[in-house]
Structures are given as structure tokens and as C-alpha cells.
């Protein structure tokens, strides 16, 4: 009869902590609807892999197999990028390309956090922690894997932080924006000068971005290339069903597998550590500094430009598409119900998506 209870004796307090963390992630996913497609599989997976002697993470266990097949070799993040690229309409930045500069400024959090993290961690680990500020899970996984290897102990915390803070954008960004702007600045109205972008431009754009990013920052070309490949499928006009599949079926399937596979990195003995707490804290810094970088750059722009822009849109450069754009739009409406910032914030938001991927490539080039 011993076999009925001997497994219970193997339970550790760290595993119990992970069950609680898994429960919290499931709660946030269902009750608060925070990134449910990711947090729910991650939460369930956290419980699954932390049962004593779990068969899911043995050498040939399903989570181990999925992890090796899709995360250790970076396949899942890249495939997900095809879906993300197919979802994004880059027309707002083709209409007003200078807004891309705000996407660049909002990557400040990545590098600032890297510096802060270097107080506690070696530089490569610090850089992998900084990339949480890309506000883009696939980029964080890709860069972390390249720099540290998929089996590094801190990868689990980096992945959890990257996805959790993306879900918390509506909570993290508004107080930072309010602290850095006056009510008068938040009420600045911006005219949307919409103009027709030719189909040829939309088709050439993903090819052009891939070539330029590849020539200047070759390490970014895998990420940028897959993102832009997805966009080319969308814009070419002859692959409608493939575009639909990439946007929905492919993205959903990969998100599901990615979420549960990440749990491989949430095994108690590696995850329950002070390092994890530090990484979670540094992840918050990354999002705060990203937001601050974008807003402050917009204020700087207003000092030298005749045409004033609402500095809040700078914060949308954080990536986290499209949540950040919606947050800025809602904040604008709250200050002035006639102020519609959506198109501007979407433009900055999609440029943040490109800039964060390029930042990831630059970090790979630096280390």
C-alpha cells in the first residue's frame, strides 16, 4: 500500500509555492482576463510540472518533448512571429513614418534594466533580463535562449515576467504617464492626416525592413524576417487563406503550446529563488523605463517641433501590441472626450513592435 502515499512524502515547500503561483496565474487569466491564452496554460503547466516525480518532465515526458521541440530551438517564438506579422497593419506608420522614432525611444527600458540587472547578474544574464522590456514574449524567449541557453535557471522567471507584465500594461503605464505629463499636455489634440498608401508600398515595406535590419543588425534578421514574412503574406493579396490561418489558427496553436511548454522552466528547484523575485522586480523597472523613455522623448520632440504631439503616445512605443495603444487612447478620451489618439498610438505601437525586435537583435550583436 506504500505506493499510494510515498509520493506525498516527496512534496517540497518549493513545489507548494509553485502550485500557489500556478493558481494565481490561472486566477488572473480567468477572473481578470489578463492574457488568458498564455497565463492559463502557464499556470496549469506550473502545477503539472511541480507534482512530485511528475511524469510530464521526465526525459521523454510530454512537456520535455514540447520544450525541446519548440522552445529550446526557438521554433515556437519564430512561428508565432509569422502570426503576429500577419495580424499587424503597418499603414499607420507608412502614413506618418516619423512616429517610428518614438518606438525606438521606448526601448530605453531594455537597456536601462540591463544596466540595473548587471549589479546582480553577469552581463549576458542582465541583457536577457533587460529584454523583458521588449514587452514581447517571443523576443524575450529568443534572445534569452540565444544568450543563455534554454536550460538556464533564470529563463523561467524571464518568460513569466515578460508575459505577466504584458498583461499588466493597463495597470503599469497610466501612473507613469501621469507622473511625467501635465493635464494640459495630455489634452493636446492631434490631427490624423490619413492618406492612401499604395499596395506596392505595403508589399515592399516588409521586404525593405528585413533587408535594412539584416544589413545593419544581422542578428535581428531571424526575428524581423519572420515578423515581416507574416506581414508580406497579409499584404500580398494572393494568400488570403494563409494570412487567415497565420493570424488565427497558427497563432492560437503556437500560443497554446508555448504557454504549456514554458512551464518546463517553472520547476520549483530552479524557480523558487531570490533571483526570480529580483527578475520580476527588474521586469517592472523595464516596463516603467520603457514608458518613461517614450513619453520623455515625445516631450523633447515638442521642444523642437512646431507641430505639438500628445506626449502620451510615446508610451505606446513599448510594443505590447495592441494593448498599449488602447491604454493611451482611453487615457486621451478620459482627459478630453473629443481627443482621438487611437491612430497615432497604434502607429507608435506597431513601430514599437519593430523596434523591440531590432533591439533584441542588437543585444545579440553586442554579446
Amino acid at each position, binding site marked *: 500500500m506504500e505506493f499510494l502515499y510515498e509520493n506525498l512524502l516527496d512534496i517540497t515547500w518549493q513545489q507548494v509555492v509553485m502550485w500557489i503561483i500556478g493558481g494565481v496565474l490561472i486566477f488572473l487569466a480567468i477572473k481578470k482576463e489578463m492574457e488568458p491564452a498564455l497565463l492559463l496554460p502557464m499556470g496549469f503547466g506550473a502545477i503539472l510540472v511541480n507534482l512530485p516525480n511528475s511524469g510530464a518532465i521526465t526525459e521523454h515526458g510530454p512537456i520535455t518533448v514540447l520544450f525541446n521541440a519548440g522552445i529550446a530551438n526557438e521554433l515556437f517564438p519564430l512561428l508565432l512571429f509569422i502570426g503576429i506579422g500577419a495580424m499587424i497593419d503597418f499603414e499607420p506608420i507608412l502614413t506618418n*513614418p516619423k512616429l517610428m522614432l518614438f518606438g525606438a525611444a521606448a526601448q530605453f527600458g531594455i537597456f536601462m534594466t540591463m544596466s540595473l540587472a548587471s549589479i546582480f547578474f553577469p552581463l549576458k544574464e542582465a541583457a536577457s533580463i533587460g529584454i523583458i522590456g521588449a514587452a514581447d514574449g517571443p523576443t524575450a524567449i529568443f534572445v534569452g535562449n540565444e544568450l543563455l541557453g534554454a536550460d538556464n535557471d533564470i529563463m523561467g522567471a524571464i518568460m513569466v515576467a515578460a508575459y505577466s507584465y504584458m498583461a499588466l500594461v493597463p495597470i503599469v503605464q497610466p501612473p507613469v504617464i501621469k507622473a511625467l505629463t501635465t493635464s494640459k499636455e495630455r489634452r493636446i489634440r492631434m490631427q490624423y492626416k490619413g492618406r492612401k498608401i499604395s499596395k506596392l508600398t505595403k508589399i515592399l515595406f516588409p521586404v525593405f525592413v528585413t533587408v535594412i535590419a539584416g544589413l*545593419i543588425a544581422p542578428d535581428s534578421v531571424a526575428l524581423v524576417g519572420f515578423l515581416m514574412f507574416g506581414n508580406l503574406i497579409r499584404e500580398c493579396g494572393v494568400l488570403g487563406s494563409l494570412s487567415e490561418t497565420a493570424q488565427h489558427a497558427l497563432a492560437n496553436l503556437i500560443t497554446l503550446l508555448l504557454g504549456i511548454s514554458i512551464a518546463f522552466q517553472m520547476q520549483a528547484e530552479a524557480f523558487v529563488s531570490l533571483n526570480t523575485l529580483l527578475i520580476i522586480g527588474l521586469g517592472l523597472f523595464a516596463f516603467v523605463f520603457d514608458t518613461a523613455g517614450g513619453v520623455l522623448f515625445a516631450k523633447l520632440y515638442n521642444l523642437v517641433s512646431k507641430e505639438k504631439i500628445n506626449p502620451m503616445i510615446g508610451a505606446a512605443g513599448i510594443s505590447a501590441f495592441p494593448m498599449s495603444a488602447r491604454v493611451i487612447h482611453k487615457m486621451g478620451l478620459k482627459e478630453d472626450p473629443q481627443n482621438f489618439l487611437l491612430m497615432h498610438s497604434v502607429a507608435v505601437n506597431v513601430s514599437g513592435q519593430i523596434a523591440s525586435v531590432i533591439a533584441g537583435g542588437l543585444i545579440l550583436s553586442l554579446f
Partner: protein
Amino acid sequence: MNALVNLLVEVSIDFGRFASSFKYMGIGMLGIFIVITVLVLGIVALNKLTAPRNKKDDSDNE
């Protein structure tokens, strides 16, 4: 208690690394602005090259 002590021992603080990281921060931010500026200029050029010709030009051509 031992487990908690072990958790604390894991973290090492090194301000020398912090100072040396500023070089990477500077290069990184500069790099990203260079790439994005090239992209902005490229998009402006792309828009001009692929802009539909106006009617006057078309009638001239005819």
C-alpha cells in the same frame, strides 16, 4: 531557515559591472535610433517612389 539563507547567498552585488554596462546601453540606444532613422528615411523614399501619379501627369503622358 537554511533554505532562506541559501536564497540570499545566491545574489552577488557588483557595481563594477554596473559601470561597464553603460557602454552597452549607449551603443544599444544609438544603434536602435540609427536603424529606425534609416527605416524612416527609407519609408519616406518608398512612399515617394510608389505614390500614384496625379491625373495631370497621366494626361501629359497620353
